[in-house]
């Protein structure tokens, strides 16, 4: 997939980062704008109460929020609150967490990305770059990626294991097992459609195709070694 970006770690495994596109990043930016506005309101109230000192503090708050709000949160969490809310994160192009230099570069250059109107240059740069990098990201060597914790969900199905009638390739087996993991998230019709397709090499069976594919999946994941030997012979 072209929204995956592969990095190879020193341990020799390659890890795939899911790049975040312009739309979701715009959403994160809007959340951040709202958060910042929410801070300005009490600050404005404070001005009314404290006069000139208040204005001075407000100016400094404004300055810090304009330029350093993203930097502070990127150093703390790897993402601004808006990005965090949408499961995004800023990393270096080698996949390591962003450091202060890169964070400063990408956020100071934000003002160039913002030109001529509403991130005009930024969006153009993102669409031209193969990794959705705006100008600030290009200079800083950073990426914005999707970042979620996944919990393993491999609850054993209720279906009885069923030995497939023919030997399948590893990729075919993997497709069957992926179906078993995902079928609860699919509508019944869609599940049936996919299952019919997956079991198409043995269409004349009278068992429901969905159950049949789930049965194969279970057989592949937990058949005892005895059956495996039987299979080979």
């Amino acid at each position, binding site marked *: 997939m072209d929204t995956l970006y592969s990095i190879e770690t020193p341990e020799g*495994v390659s890890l795939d980062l899911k790049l975040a596109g312009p739309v979701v990043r715009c959403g994160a930016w809007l959340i951040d704008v709202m958060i910042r506005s929410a801070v300005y309101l009490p600050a404005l109230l404070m001005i009314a109460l404290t006069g*000139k000192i208040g204005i*001075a503090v407000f100016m400094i708050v404004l300055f810090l929020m304009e330029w350093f709000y993203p930097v502070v949160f990127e150093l703390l969490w790897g993402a601004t609150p808006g990005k965090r809310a949408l499961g995004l994160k800023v990393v270096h192009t080698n996949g390591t967490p962003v450091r202060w230099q890169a964070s400063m*570069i990408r956020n*100071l250059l934000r003002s*160039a990305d913002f030109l001529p109107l509403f991130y005009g240059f930024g969006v153009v740069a993102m669409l031209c770059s193969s990794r959705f990098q705006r100008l600030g990201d290009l200079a800083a060597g950073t990426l914005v990626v999707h970042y979620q914790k996944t919990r393993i969900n491999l609850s054993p199905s209720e279906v009885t294991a069923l030995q497939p009638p023919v030997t399948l390739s*590893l990729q075919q087996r993997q497709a069957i*097992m992926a179906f078993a993991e995902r079928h609860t998230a699919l509508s019944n019709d869609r599940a049936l459609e996919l299952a019919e397709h997956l079991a198409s090499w043995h269409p004349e069976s009278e068992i429901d195709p969905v159950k049949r594919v789930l049965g194969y999946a279970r057989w592949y994941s*937990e058949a005892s070694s005895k059956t495996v030997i039987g299979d080979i012979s």
Partner: protein
Amino acid sequence: MIKQSQFQQQHQSTWNQCDDLLDRLELLKKSKRPDASELLKLPDLYSDLCQQLAIAQSRCYSPGLIEYLHNLTLRFHDHLYRREFRLGNTLLSFLTTDFPCTLRMHRRIFTLACLMFFGTMLVVGVLCYSYPDLIYSIMDDEQIATMEYMYNPAQNHVLGRTQKHEATSRVLMFGFYIRNNTGIGFQTFAGGILAGIGTAFYLIYNGLILGAVSGYLTQLGYGTPFWSFVSGHSAFELTAIAISGCAGLLLAKAILLPGNQTRREALRIEAHSAVILISGAALLFLAAAAVEGFWSPTAGIPVHVKYAVGAMLWMLLISYLVFSGRNHHAN
């Protein structure tokens, strides 16, 4: 080849342990984070995890399992390849070595930025001094009137010459200078990525305005109030603008003259120096705002004391930028 369920049974407890450790590492509260003996286990756990991920991938185990291991490994990778950030140490070595050394490393670009900024200022200043009417093509009538009013030696409530300038308005001006001037510096830097057009614009434009104002006021005979106000913070502020420009021009150089690297790579390398320069410039802007807010408008100080302080600050700043960090050996 063992089946997926056996593989899972074998390793599930390790994965749970990893999960738990990572969850606790990501906590904000320090007291609940893993202690040293647990942290020592991380590298081994991580290399086991990498191996198990590779096995799961090559045996085509189910995509769900592979994704789970993949994300666990990615989270681990995040923590193992993280560098600790200590503000105190970073700031100290930044000020004593990184900043002045980086600036000296790029002295040719810095000279170019100075030429664009101070050069314009000098030329326009001399022009406005000799042909005062020129000011009307640079600034509008209202701005000129305000400026004349502010620095008129006959007026008694001028900037920096009366007691009316009480403490609170100084704080106010301090806040204003921080936001306004540092913002200009940052924009000067950011303009560099647009092939230097933005940087050149800000350097020349600011040089033009500053030159015009000082040339015009001096020929009007308002020189004393003007120069005595400006002399204190001029060292920090003008140098900071030139350094911001230098940082912007570095980005422009990477784009226009990348040498034998790709533009992307050249940009990444130059940006690394540029960010050090712009951070240093930001600190200089902060110093300038403090001087401009609290020292420059102080009334009742003889003019030559103000000039002497201004000259001293210039000398201090120049010798800091020229000599600091010279005996530092890169390690």
